[in-house]
């Protein structure tokens, strides 16, 4: 459906239904995940211009050669933001609905801000200087990346301060994942809403997905993850198991070594030869 690039502008949506057996208490985080998407390819990772993203005007109009082959469009206009990373931004949108027992549906409010590193939002990504100009005027003379539906200064239609290079979704995407299967933060449950102060109650939910990001042609998969977190992050099975196994092995080794020392080590260490 999205194989043809020219269809990028058209909408397409689908709906996924699921239910929660137990309520998710506390902060609930909403992730989108991609499988078999290689954000860690060398040329892909290089294909970005941090000089442009930090708001340098020269780089805005003259993107670095690193961005190749997404520097300029066929008309020779510079692309902003340039490069393969920005070009391939994940642009599905999700709306989560809660269906309570009475059958009423509430839109689950997601906080789409504050999902980035502090340094990214405040240091690494900056819009070009806006001297009494609108963002659109600043970006005049550039074109949106090839696969994008909207230009960079219109990414967040709801919140004008979240546009341009400092758009949270863009920043999240620009922080490349280390491995081909990854998840990225989409939003956090907005608990100020009266229904969700305790987190997500049990019940049935549906996600409406505005489907823009094609994955089937590279045999990728998409997923959505809802999770709560503890003090050291999300649910992580590997670490505690690894610790348990390692420590028991160390214990075993310690016992063995003590025995060995008792039996062999004590002799042979004196100088009587």
């Amino acid at each position, binding site marked *: 459906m999205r194989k043809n690039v020219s269809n990028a502008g058209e909408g397409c949506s689908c709906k996924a239904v699921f239910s929660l057996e137990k309520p998710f208490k506390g902060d609930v985080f909403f992730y989108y995940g991609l499988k078999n998407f290689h954000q860690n390819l060398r040329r892909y990772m290089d294909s970005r211009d941090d000089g442009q993203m930090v708001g340098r005007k020269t780089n805005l109009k003259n993107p670095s050669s690193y961005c190749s082959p997404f520097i300029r469009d066929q008309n020779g206009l510079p692309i902003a933001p340039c490069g393969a990373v920005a070009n391939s931004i994940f642009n599905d949108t999700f709306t989560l609905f809660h269906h309570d027992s009475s059958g009423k549906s509430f839109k689950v409010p997601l906080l789409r801000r504050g999902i980035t590193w502090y*340094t990214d939002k405040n240091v690494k990504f900056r819009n070009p200087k806006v001297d009494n100009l609108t963002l659109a005027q600043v970006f005049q003379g550039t074109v949106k990346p090839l696969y994008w539906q909207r230009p960079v200064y219109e990414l967040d239609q709801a919140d004008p301060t979240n546009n341009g290079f400092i758009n949270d979704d863009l920043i999240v995407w620009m922080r490349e994942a280390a491995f081909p299967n990854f998840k990225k933060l989409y939003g956090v449950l907005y608990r100020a809403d009266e229904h969700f102060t305790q987190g997500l109650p049990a019940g049935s939910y549906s996600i409406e997905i505005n489907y823009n990001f094609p994955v089937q042609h590279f045999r990728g998969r998409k997923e959505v993850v809802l999770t709560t977190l503890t003090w050291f992050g999300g649910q992580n099975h590997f670490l505690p198991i690894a610790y348990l196994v390692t420590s028991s092995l160390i214990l075993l080794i310690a016992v063995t070594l003590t025995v*060995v020392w008792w039996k062999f080590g004590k002799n042979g260490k*004196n100088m009587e030869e």
Partner: protein
Amino acid sequence: PYLCEERRVRANDREYNEKFQYASNCIMTSKYNIITFLPVNLFEQFQEVANTYFLFLLILQLIPQISSLSWFTTIVPLALVLTITAVKDATDDYFRHKSDNQVNNRQSQVLIRGLLQNEKWMNVRVGDIIKLENNQFVAADLLLLSSSEPHGLCYIETAELDGETNMKVRQSVSVTSELGDQNNLSSFNGEVVCEPPNNKLDRFCGTLYWRDKKYTLTNQNMLLRGCVLRNTEACYGLVIFAGPDTKLMQNSGRTKFKRTSIDRLMNTLVLWIFGFLVCMGVILAIGNAVWEREVGSLFQSYLPWDPPVDNFLFNAFLSFWSYVIILNTVVPISLYVSVEVIRLGHSYFINWDQHMFCSQCNTAAEARTTTLNEELGQVEYIFSDKTGTLTQNIMSFNKCSINGQTFGKYPLGPQPKRLDFTPFNPLADLDFCFYDDTLLESVKVGDLHTQEFFRLLSLCHTVMSEEKSEGELVYKAQSPDEGALVTAARNFGFVFRSRTPGTISTTEMGRPATYTLLAILDFNNIRKRMSVIVRNAEGRIRLYCKGADTVLLERLHPCNQELTNITSDHLNEYAADGLRTLALAYRDLTEDEWEAWSESHRCADKATDCREDRLAAAYEQIEQDMMLLGATAIEDKLQEGVPETIAVLSLANIKIWVLTGDKQETAVNIGYSCKMLTDDMTEVFIISGHTVQSVRQELRSVSLTGRTAACPPSSWSTLPCPPPPPPPPPPPPSNLMDNISGEFALIINGHSLAHALEADMETEFLSTACACKAVICCRVTPLQKAQVVELIKKHKKAVTLAIGDGANDVSMIKSAHIGVGISGQEGIQAVLASDYSFSQFRFLQRLLLVHGRWSYLRMCRFLCYFFYKNFAFTMVHFWFGFFCGFSAQTVYDQYFITLYNIVYTSLPVLAMGIFDQDVPDHRSLEYPKLYEPGQLNLLFNKKEFFICIAQGIYTSVVLFFVPYAVLSDASQSNGVPLADYQTFAVTTATALVIVVSVQIALDTGFWTVINHVCVWGSLGSYFTIMFALHSQSLFRIFPNQFHFVGSAQSTLLQPVVWLTIALATAICIVPVLAFRFLKLDLKPQLSDTVRYTQLVRQKKRKPGRLGARGGSRRSGYAFAHQEGFGELITSGKNMRLSSMALASFASRHSSGWIDTLRRKKHTSAQHLGGVQSSTQLCLWVSSSTLKLLLCSGRLTRYTY
């Protein structure tokens, strides 16, 4: 007309000589000057394979399609390495410039237009006539024209050229010697035609054309650069060869660059690693091909292939090179420079070692080559020179036995008092040391025997004296033994003052006395004795004789029996102490006896055929029925601590071979006194055959004996001079097993060695010699020394060390893996050719057992760790390749890659490589066995290398997969996932730095402050630099260079990250710890045990001192003495014309003594096979051969 086959030099004619453009006397050993330094040095450096390889990498990195790393990751280390090497080369060259300048600016006196002018050496031209004064260095190769001494003779010392300290005589052509002084010489315009410059020190042929006559010139007329004029007031010479053309410079070829076995192993391993690198590259490229075909091609809408790339195969090809760049850190450029730095450090330790500083001569040990240190820890064979190396070449009168009473007991006590002779004898030599005052008392009270004893010593010798002013006597002795004896007599009141051909003047107890010298019965090697016949003032004629006890005691009057027994006992005692003994005797002759003998002697002397035989018979005739006076014992002073050093070194399983030009008796004697040979030895084999067959036969029977430990073969003796008690009894049968592996020693003569070194016999010789505990080769030429070393190098794959002090050792020093020069009295040629130099043989044990051992240990540990840390570092990229589509994406930040090897991990391992030690120095001297791992190459070999590599790869697996497993599913507490690339990179890098730091902490056996500073400093610098590089300020300036802004704090604030790092560290380190514990418990090394013992401070038994050797008696009429000086004295040839009337000595003698000398040398050089043919040959056959022949009954006419 200039012909390159010959050189023409006309004296005093610069214009004529300049036509030929001969080299000037300016020498240049430096390599660069200021302008040429940079290009030449860089050119040289890029001839190193490693540097070229890194240059190649650099070029690869400049290709954007391949460049997986920025160019500065390679250029920074490369520039660093090139700079360090360049600085070192520049410093070396600076010192060469300095020494060149110093030599070039020495002054010499040149005869210009009839006047002597001071000129710098470098301004001396070919054809100039220069004047040399006593003790001056010869400035160029000169033709001796005239000298202040009679007959145009002059004496030179050639120590710097060939290491021989005895003086040599040069004589000018008679026509020029008559020229005399400078006035005549300035008009001298002879022309010399001679051969072009060459490096043959002992050969010169040319012709002098002067006044229409031709005179043949030989080496005998030449003074070579590097010699020192001695005992000659002045001489004039014509410069024939100057500067680089001189024989000295022609001989100093560029030294062969020595490499250590570790170097070679390292190069092999580096090649293997390259192979490994290529394999990895190929695997990853194949992976890339597959991935690009299966996945990448589908992913092209997000990341199209680069324009030149149109298919996955080409992509894979590029990826191969990209991976070569990334993975090249397995062979980091810093390896070579680190190794150099470590070696340099070790060299400085050697230079600075106070225990290797000789306070007497104020010289410290010097590591002249800085690249061989670790090989010092692997030495298996030491080839040592004798004179000047084991011994000081100083003889001292140590003990004597007079009329059955022994003198010279060394008093006990810390500071024994030296006898002061001055009040008793104003002519005494102040350097003479003697401690037993009973002898002095005995002289003072006028004991007749004692006085006669010293009178003998003052008369019976061939020493020349020189009395510059009243009482200031200088003796010129032909051998140091004689010098010692005459000096002893001098101090005890019997002062030899001067001699003429017919008289000897002495001062006896303060009264002058003159003896008429009737005859000198000269020394030779068969007679092993010399006598003089003198008539004293009262007209009584007496024969004084001194000689080897074995020879002399047979010629005593029967009434001496009792005294002989006592003296024999004393002689045994002295020999047991390793002293060289002589027996002294006299005989009163009546006038008739003398007349009769004199007549027969004259007949013999005049005989034309068999003169030597007849003379010997005549001497034999009169040296009979002598009265024993006593015996002297001379100490051939060993260098300090030689026996102890040899004992320690042989405990360390190092085999010591003594290669000496000395005679067999002397060598064996020294062998005993320095405990190389002991009486506990099962057998001492002597090989001295003259023919191939006999040598082969002897070798065979040695190996046969060695194998069966049967009774000693009866056909040849076991000791050179078996004492009256027979050789060691045959071993009892119960000891048979011991004897098979028993201790043997082999003594081989130079002429036998020549045969043994031939291709068909060398293996036989080698196996025999290597089975022996001690090997002594005597009468060997410098070339043979080198051949022996080469033989071992070729067949044994063992590290060899040659130690010597003279120029005759240079060849062996150069050919051995390690050459050590003793910076002693002899010239500096050996030192210049050596890799290490110090002034005392005993420092060798410290050099090997302490410095060598440590260097080896450190280098091995360093290499192990270095390969480990680089594999751990690099292989992470390999595993990451499987996750990043084999796209050659690095795991780490590029700055981390740049700095990892040169900052984060370099200093701790350097500190370990420089300072580490497993046991302290005194322990490694105490337990020489600790040296063995080095010889067996146990600490770093291919197996150890693979263990390190395996450990490195294991670490890389842990370092990649543990963070992978943890982080791929983890998130920060604010929900941001941790699986982003930068977090992963920082986590892995931090874990890596911590793991390798813990590992170096484990590997470091000896913590100094510097180690602490380095380890903690490196960790600290890692975090500091990382935070700096990830800081906002840098990012603001160069946003495209510092992508990692904020990663450090964002990552390192996460508890999960630290838990991951801790886990990875534990998994990496615990198995290593466990393995080491197990090894310590189950297979402890000696060093572990010593360490442990050190730790618990156990009281240890002192290592057993070497038991005092009671010994078989080895006599030592072992004079380093040449025959012929008797004749020289009686002929008066070497005396001033003024002091004597030469009339009686007809021209028959005029060149006689030189001829005699030359003839004998000639014969000795040939060593022809026919033993029976002439007695003259037998002069040079060692006494043992003689014994041997006697035993076999072939030479019965030599019954004494």
